[in-house]
């Protein structure tokens, strides 16, 4: 049985002006120790999926369908009191912006011990000792002295380390990282990713990494889901997906990223157009208006994920990219570790 099984998750936002169909039936399984990437551009429903799993959607959002099975419990529709026992203990989350995700008026020691005493049978002293050990573990120098500091006294990278320390405080089984490195500069990004990889291995956690950065996914994730307009449109082992992307959107994403091994004069090739508005979705492939491979069928019927090249590589497309159009394939550059 998978550690976490998301089945046909649907999330809608009900605002006064319109209903936004943010997540439209996504499914995936996460095994113990697995690292799973979810990539997609802004507003495709990545973060919303994560918030929905934990039951912390904003007030206007609601899960309108599907299940999120953690063990044999369905997190969808679970009472908030029960969910609170899981959040932070079994499933923890790291957010995008470490500058604003820590409470500015509370000392970080207090914020860390709050999590520990909440979920574990610890008194204040034990929690303080544990907080120091955790900070030490995520690489914060003089951890003991820094418990009394406020968030503004830490740099961005250090704050993200604190966030990670808080997230792993209760030894969660699943760690959800929502754009954990987006707000950091590149050298710090690498440090934080290395730290996360190390912790995931040490703790045997399942990791769900949400990002728009293909490089991050390539470096960290075993499997990758590509999300577009609230759906997964391609999923597979990261290496396979990067070498032989079969969905035109995945191919477009890969082409729009600069490569170290490319010719210098080679121009980037962005995807034309913009994603559909999630308030007025119609039948048919949502990517069809921007797709060079689109046919009448694409516009008429919505494609479902189906296996292509083995059981582990799935794509939701009526006309997958033919081999001849794959740009750098086959590449000898290791895409995933």
């Amino acid at each position, binding site marked *: 049985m998978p550690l976490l099984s998301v089945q046909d998750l649907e999330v809608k936002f009900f605002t006064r002006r319109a209903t936004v169909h943010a997540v439209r039936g996504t499914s995936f399984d996460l095994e113990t120790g697995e690292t799973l990437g979810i990539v997609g551009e802004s507003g495709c429903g990545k973060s919303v999926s994560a918030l929905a799993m934990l039951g*912390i959607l904003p007030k206007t959002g609601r899960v309108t369908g599907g299940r999120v099975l953690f063990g044999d419990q369905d997190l969808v529709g679970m009472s908030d009191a029960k969910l609170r026992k899981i*959040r932070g203990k079994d499933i923890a989350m790291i957010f995008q912006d470490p500058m604003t995700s820590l409470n500015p*008026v*509370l000392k970080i020691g207090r914020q860390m011990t709050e999590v520990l005493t*909440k979920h574990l049978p610890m008194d204040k002293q034990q929690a303080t000792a544990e907080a120091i050990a955790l900070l030490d573990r995520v690489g914060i120098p003089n951890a003991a002295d820094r418990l009394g500091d406020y968030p503004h006294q830490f740099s961005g990278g250090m704050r993200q380390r604190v966030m990670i320390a808080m997230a792993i405080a209760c030894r969660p089984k699943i760690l959800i990282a929502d754009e954990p490195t987006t707000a950091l500069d590149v050298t710090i990004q690498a440090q934080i990713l290395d730290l996360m990889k190390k912790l995931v291995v040490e703790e045997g956690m399942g990791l769900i990494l949400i990002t728009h950065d293909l490089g991050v996914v390539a470096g960290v994730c075993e499997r990758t889901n590509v999300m577009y307009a609230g759906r997964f449109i391609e999923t597979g082992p990261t290496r396979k997906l990067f070498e032989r992307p079969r969905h035109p959107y995945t191919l477009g994403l890969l082409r729009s990223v600069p490569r170290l091994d490319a010719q210098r004069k080679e121009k980037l090739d962005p995807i034309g157009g913009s994603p559909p508005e999630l308030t007025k979705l119609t039948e048919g492939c949502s990517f069809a208006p921007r797709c060079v491979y689109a046919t009448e069928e694409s516009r008429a019927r919505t494609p479902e994920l189906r296996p292509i090249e083995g059981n582990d590589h799935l794509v939701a497309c009526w006309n997958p990219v033919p081999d001849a159009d794959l740009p750098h394939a086959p590449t000898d550059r290791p895409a995933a570790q």
Partner: protein
Amino acid sequence: MSITEAEAAQLSFERPSGLWADAWDRFKRNPAALVGIVLIVVFILAAIFAAQIAPFEPNEQAGPLATNPAGPGGEHLLGLDMQGRDVFTRILFGARLSLLVGLVSVSVGLALGLVLGSLAGYLGGRVDFAIMRVMDLMLSVPGLLLAIALVTVMGRGLISIMLAVGIVQVPTFARLLRGSILGQREADYVLAARSVGVPGRRVLLGHILPNSIAPVIVQATLAMATAIIEVAALSFVGLGPNDPRLPEWGKMLAENANRLQQSVHLVLFPGLAIVFSTLGINLIGDGLREAIDPKLKT
């Protein structure tokens, strides 16, 4: 001690130690605020040590009854009133009363305002609508008029005056806090707190409130001044504490208002007491606002 150790010590010494320490740093550099502090310290000392400083008892007949009582000078620093009581003494004891009235009524307003404002801001929706419309209703009546109405209903007396003045301030606090909470409710750290399983009540009290409270503290300071003035005003219109012996500043003004031309000192000194105490509080309040408001940081 090696150089690095010395440097480390230096660094840790210079490290800013938080929001309030920073605020105090800025506050200290504001001359107007310091003047306010001096005024208020004098005011508070006068209130605390009234019995020790005052040369007479507040209701002791220290001089002759007179329609034109003696003015300042000699034994009586600020003169005598028509009952022959020492004005300086009565003003000192009045400080005690004003301080009490200010603190109690602001506490009442603050307590109710915090509860209502938090509920409205955090729960939102219908609760918010219901609470805020009641607040709007209260704000639509001029504060003093509302206080007069409340005192009339509750009956005269020190307690009902303090309650009335406090209740009049509830909407101000509630609105301020609600707005402040609305700005914090969707903040990332709130989501982060929820993501680690912090329950709603703790999110509000432990995370949102400490981040929203600064403007309310400033307002509470300023409200002290308003409270003192409003109590004086209530006394002036005859709704003050009905014990004629109480040396309430507003009451002293009211009793002697028609003597203004003959005995200026009877009106001038209680008036000045009101002016300087409220001025001091206002200066501190403004200084606090500038010190806390991050937008005004320099």
